């Protein structure tokens, strides 16, 4: 198992900034969505729908740099960049970033950093959804929602994370494997 080299650290940070820049493009979409849903008290749904793009850096970094900690670092560095680059959520960005990273890392850790395929990505999506939802229960008071609405939020979040962090990440990885950038390793 190899350790972190400066090249990997630079790569993960550049990737995190790229993901932030792409996420930024969805800004208007989010604003429209949030504004439309807010009057009905459904604004959190807008977060849930797009959360997948936000947490994609984790599984991508984990999949490309196959070192323990890469998913966490990918997501966390993204949060650091966001904090210094006009982000307004400050310290809570860092905490959320670290938790999102750990959530996605768990998927890779549970398969022993040996399997890089569908199962791991699905698992990683599930763990990310659980960890981040747990944090929102505490931080944003999701715990006091009615059970039905809470379930709706969780399912939408899981689907969003699974689409972006699972399906899309796998499709990207497939391209990278075919271009001989990634090894066509076991799944």
């Amino acid at each position, binding site marked *: 198992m190899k350790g972190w080299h400066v090249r990997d650290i630079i790569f993960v940070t550049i990737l995190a900034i790229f993901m932030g820049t792409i996420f930024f493009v969805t800004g208007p979409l989010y604003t429209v969505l949030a504004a439309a849903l807010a009057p009905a008290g459904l604004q959190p749904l807008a977060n849930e729908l797009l959360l997948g793009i936000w947490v994609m850096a984790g599984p991508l970094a984990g999949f490309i740099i196959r070192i323990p900690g890469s998913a966490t670092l990918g997501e966390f560095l993204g949060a650091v960049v966001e904090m210094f680059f006009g982000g307004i959520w400050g310290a809570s960005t860092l905490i959320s970033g670290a938790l999102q990273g750990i959530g996605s890392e768990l998927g890779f850790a549970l398969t022993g950093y040996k399997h890089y395929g569908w199962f791991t990505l699905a698992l990683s999506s599930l763990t990310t959804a659980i960890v981040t939802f747990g944090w929102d229960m505490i931080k944003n008071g999701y715990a006091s929602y009615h059970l039905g609405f809470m379930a709706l939020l969780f399912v939408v979040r899981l689907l969003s994370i699974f689409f972006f962090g699972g399906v899309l990440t796998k499709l990207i990885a497939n*391209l990278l494997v*075919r*271009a*001989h950038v990634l090894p066509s390793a076991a799944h």
Partner: protein
Amino acid sequence: MATVTIDSLTFTYPKRTHPVLDNLAVTFPAGKFSLLTGVSGGGKSTLLNLIAGLTPLPTPGAIRFDGHPLAEIPAAKHANTVAMMFQEPSTQFTMDTVENELRFALENQRMTATDIPAAIDDALNFVGIAQLKHRILMQLSGGEQQKVALAIIVAMNSDVILLDEPFASIDPPTRLTLLQKLMTLCTQQHKTVILADHDLSGYAPWVDHLAVLDSGHLALLSAEETQERFAAFTPDRLRLTRVTAPQATETACLQGTQLGLFSGDRELIHPQDLAFFAGQTTLITGPNGSGKSTLFRALVRLGHYQGTLTYQGRDIQKIARKSYARQVGLMFQSSMAQFLNVTLDEELTLSQKNGNHAYFTPERVTQLLDQLGLTQHRDQVIYSLSSGQQKKAQLLCMLIMAPQVLLLDEPLKGLDLASIQTTMQILTSVQQDLGLTLILISHQLSGLDGLVTHHLRLMDHHLLYEGATE
């Protein structure tokens, strides 16, 4: 000072069968300026990276500095032994400002903190860029960035200075300054300089030795042989017989009104009116770094400009992006930038799906592929093709799209003579058949004659058609 000795060095890229460097044995003398030359993609960068210790050596000890392999020299002394200036000026810095980057380099060498400020000022003064000390690196021009890169090497006091095509995108006055400083470093401080460039023009007064890298083999010429080689070398000359000044009858397709271009706060093109004419092939020439590529980026809405730009009478900012991109296309200087898929076949399929498929029938595409010698590479990963093959594939992909106006930024870069001729034939016939408007930037001047009809010169921040008067 340090002599660089290379001894039985063979290097093969991963997954390739033929070595790019084949049993090299050569000595670069200390205190001399050597020019490493050879075709693009011929292994010059690979060799420099091996010397600099940035690529691990296949056999330890194959490269030695005054008899010592780099591995035997303590890590903190590496940069003191050998340092490199890279081709791409903007991705060679770690820190935000010039001063901080110099500090970073000197801290790495474990220089005492109190000695650092003086060392920084000395290095900046040597290169003559004291005024840049507090500037942000990413806001400097490519030429200024290369000067900073040299100042860092001077501050680190590196014995061997490697430069990998350092002048590819910088203006002639900066190139001259850098060459003068390198010369001073050679003669007064006995630094060993090895500079890689595929173009020999303008080096004769500076270079002691020419090192020619040809199909994996390297020959270092003596000082006399070098001067003979330079004397025999005639730079590529532009011979255009079909060029005329734009006539009043021609219709303008792209038009700029009071068009001004800037790079940061530096003026590239002073606001002027400008027109490109439909159905013509216009060649733009001008010094490196004068703003030719920036003009192209502005024309495809990838850069800021002053004034207005219209396409067929409509402001290009008011045309839907998607529709504009189909009418005015750019063949980027970097082939990588053009590709979206994995294999050559997928790239062609994409272009055929979205491009002018009435003209580019499968038979025609097959025939063009054959002409370009790409048929057997159809299923290959496009990123694993040689740079010349990538260039030809890129051109084909953009031609199949057949936008009304096609901008070509260095379309012949890295091509051998035979490929240049084929490419020019294909370009000429497609242009005639489809009536495309072509605008090109090219350093490669021979072979353009049959195609070019207008010649636009960029001089002193101004663009002027050959034969036209103000």
